[in-house]
């Protein structure tokens, strides 16, 4: 291919060439890193919470009347909720996955152990907890109704039995067989025995590292006069049950406030709002960048074609085919883009290093983003230059004979 004449022609308009190359370089660096951030966020957002999100909702109830008894009310509320048409199961739970607020504690294997063996979020539930979360026991058993203790916000948490997630069981007992083992939920005895292991359940905090370290505690535990409930419904009946529950609970005791009913889908939407916003903003940046760069290439190529109309005519008159002219401009664009991309590859890693600073858990840009970016920008460049190049190919040879 006729590369040498292309290069010598390019050398005569170095500045324009550098400008297009620089634009391509910056575009590659930004697009690769932005795309990587988007993929990472999407990965975070796709982690399952371990529960049935579409058919579950949660709400709080706070009593204020004189003589309000949170424990009696909790039993009445649970009975009412479980009896509502369309309800599969209901439990009390101080928090849920995606709620972004809750209780976590260190779990010890020895009394007075200096550093906890694992951190875990706690959900205080009754024997309906597992069924309401719609998570699954993979070993051991569920809580028995008689094991559910009556607790207060200030109680020490030393339950005789607990259920843990597989992630937490593996962390505490890497050899397996966590069922039957004892741990310390408090720095002092008595110990708590693991009676069951569930497959998946997330902590309330989506930003936590060990997000599946969860312990279920058998306990009815209102925070003062505040209690929280979780309700799972039959498929498709969530919104209807929500309204029904709100109405019936409201009239069952007017000495308390029923908080806003929120589906787990709403909680998920809110928990990842910032990640979603970041993704959308970065997508917009990528789109604008590619558009601007493509338009820049079109503009510059059009200018070059216009500037060289006479030379093109001369080449055509000397026997060059239309295809040869077209190829000339495509090759020229390929060369400039490639130069820009090589610089851009280096810039991409520079940018990635900057992004790494002050960011917990961020990773360096994986290698395959850069070659993928190369291919995309090569294609973009060729498409952008196609219009002007086709126009160039249509320049009639007769132009050569005209004076300017």
């Amino acid at each position, binding site marked *: 291919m006729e590369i040498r004449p292309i290069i010598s022609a390019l050398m005569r308009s170095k500045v324009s060439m550098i400008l297009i190359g620089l634009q391509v370089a*910056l575009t590659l660096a930004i697009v690769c890193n932005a795309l990587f951030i988007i993929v990472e966020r999407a990965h975070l957002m796709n982690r399952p919470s371990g529960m049935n999100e579409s058919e579950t909702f949660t709400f709080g109830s706070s009593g204020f009347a004189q003589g309000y008894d949170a424990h009696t009310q909790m039993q009445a509320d649970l009975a009412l909720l479980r009896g509502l048409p369309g309800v599969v199961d209901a439990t009390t739970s101080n928090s849920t996955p995606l709620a972004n607020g809750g209780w976590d504690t260190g779990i010890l294997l020895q009394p007075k152990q200096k550093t906890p063996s694992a951190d875990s979020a706690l959900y205080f539930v009754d024997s309906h907890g597992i069924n309401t979360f719609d998570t699954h026991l993979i070993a051991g058993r569920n809580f028995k109704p008689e094991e559910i203790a009556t607790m207060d916000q200030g109680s020490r948490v030393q339950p005789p039995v607990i259920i843990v997630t597989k992630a937490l069981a593996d962390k505490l007992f890497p050899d397996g067989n966590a069922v039957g083992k004892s741990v310390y939920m408090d720095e002092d005895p008595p110990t708590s025995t693991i009676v069951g292991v569930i497959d998946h359940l997330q902590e309330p905090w989506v930003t936590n590292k060990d997000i599946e370290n969860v312990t279920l505690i058998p306990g009815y535990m209102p925070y003062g006069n505040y209690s929280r409930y979780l309700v799972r419904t039959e498929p498709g009946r969530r919104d209807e049950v929500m309204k029904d529950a709100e109405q019936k609970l409201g009239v069952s005791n007017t000495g308390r*406030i029923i908080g806003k009913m929120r589906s787990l889908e709403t909680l998920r939407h809110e928990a990842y709002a910032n990640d979603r916003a970041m993704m959308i903003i970065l997508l917009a940046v990528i789109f604008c960048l590619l558009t601007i760069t493509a338009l820049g290439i079109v503009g510059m190529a059009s200018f070059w074609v216009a500037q060289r109309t006479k030379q093109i005519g001369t080449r055509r008159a000397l026997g060059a085919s239309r295809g040869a002219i077209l190829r000339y401009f495509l090759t020229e664009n390929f060369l400039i883009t490639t130069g820009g991309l090589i610089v851009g590859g280096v810039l991409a890693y520079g940018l990635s290093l900057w992004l790494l600073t002050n960011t917990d858990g961020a990773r360096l840009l994986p290698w395959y983003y850069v070659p993928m970016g190369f291919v995309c920008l090569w294609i973009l460049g060729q498409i952008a230059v196609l219009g002007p190049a086709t126009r160039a190919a249509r320049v009639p040879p007769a132009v050569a004979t005209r004076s300017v």
Partner: protein
Amino acid sequence: MFAYYLELGLRSLRRNPILTALMVIGIATGIAASMTTLTVMYLLGNDPIPWKSGKLHYVQLDNWDANNPWRDDGKPPDQVTYQDAQALMAAGKADKQAAMFKISLPVQPENKDLKPFQSLGRATYADFFGMFEPPFKYGGAWNHDQDKQHAHVVVLGKDLNEKLFGGQDSTGKTIRMSGTDYTIIGVVGDWKLRTRYYDLTNGAFSDPDEFFFPYTTAIDLKQRSSGNNSCFKSPEPGWDAYLQSDCVWQQMWVELDSPARLAEYKSFLDNYVNEQKKLGRFPRPLNNQLLNVTEWMKDQKVVSRDVQVQTGLGFAFLIVCLVNTIGLLLAKFTRKSGEIGLRRALGASKRDVFTQFLIESGVVGLSGGVLGLILTGLGLVAVRALYEEYKTVAQLDWSMIGVTIVLAVVSALLAGLYPTWRACSVQPAAQLKV
């Protein structure tokens, strides 16, 4: 001459409408991307109380576990215990001081049309109002005596007063919360807080506090804070044991009017902790932190890393747009070599040609700036839609509008400089030969 060059510039821009549009849109999107992100970053990190942010200090004491630091980086806990807050309040060594915590109480309106509802407020001391200066619409704050007397008084926030009393002067009336009546002594007006900087632990962008009432009165309710509570070891059962525990759940602010007072207070804190060590508390090495408002906001990363990254990328995008504009202007001016040669041959100086083309670039920049400003407005609408919590910071701000216009014109002139310089160094003789 300026008017003539302006006319020439406009005519030249009209001759190539597509190219002109490309340049203007390029600059405008670049400006919009960078200014939208910069506005959010600037307003997030903006000093909320510039006239005294250097005097207000947030107290942190390291009462944490001997073996495990509060955080891996060794920073002290972000809140203090009840007993330490009490000790510091009783000592009263600062010019002003206020311990505080967030609390949620049920409000039982007298108006039976309104159902009882949960309200989020703050238990604090009288000095809070002198320190953070919320503007009062009606009435005023309570005083130190009322702090001591556990007075049943309350200052309502704007929203709660709106909801219960339709925004009327409610001072002197009572409000029933959790079964107890409180006398309303003041109503806060429009307190435009972009970030609730005095309690960053419980959400810098949470809704404003709906009421304020004396801390001493709140403790009598024996109700825990509705904000964050952290313990490194479980307290013994019961409210009194909780108060005596090493759980942190309160914020402690002090106002120190001079650097000398700050130094005094620092050594006071060190002495306090050393005394406590003798009593068996504070097993960790001395690690007190006394940050002022802006330092505390930085420490708590109010400007999130995402916002910094977005701003960085916004400006990188602006650079791409400028490089694009330089290229297009260069192309455009180079095509005019013949015209330039003719003008130079007819006696125009280099300076004249330079002025003419710089004005043309300036027009592109100004149009880009104006369009960019409109796009920035749209961009901020988008940010508000995307980030519910940034609704108070994603606002067009006068100083930012000024920066936008200046940025647009300066960028366009910078972008126009090289192409213009190339244009005016055209040799007339070379162009006039056929």
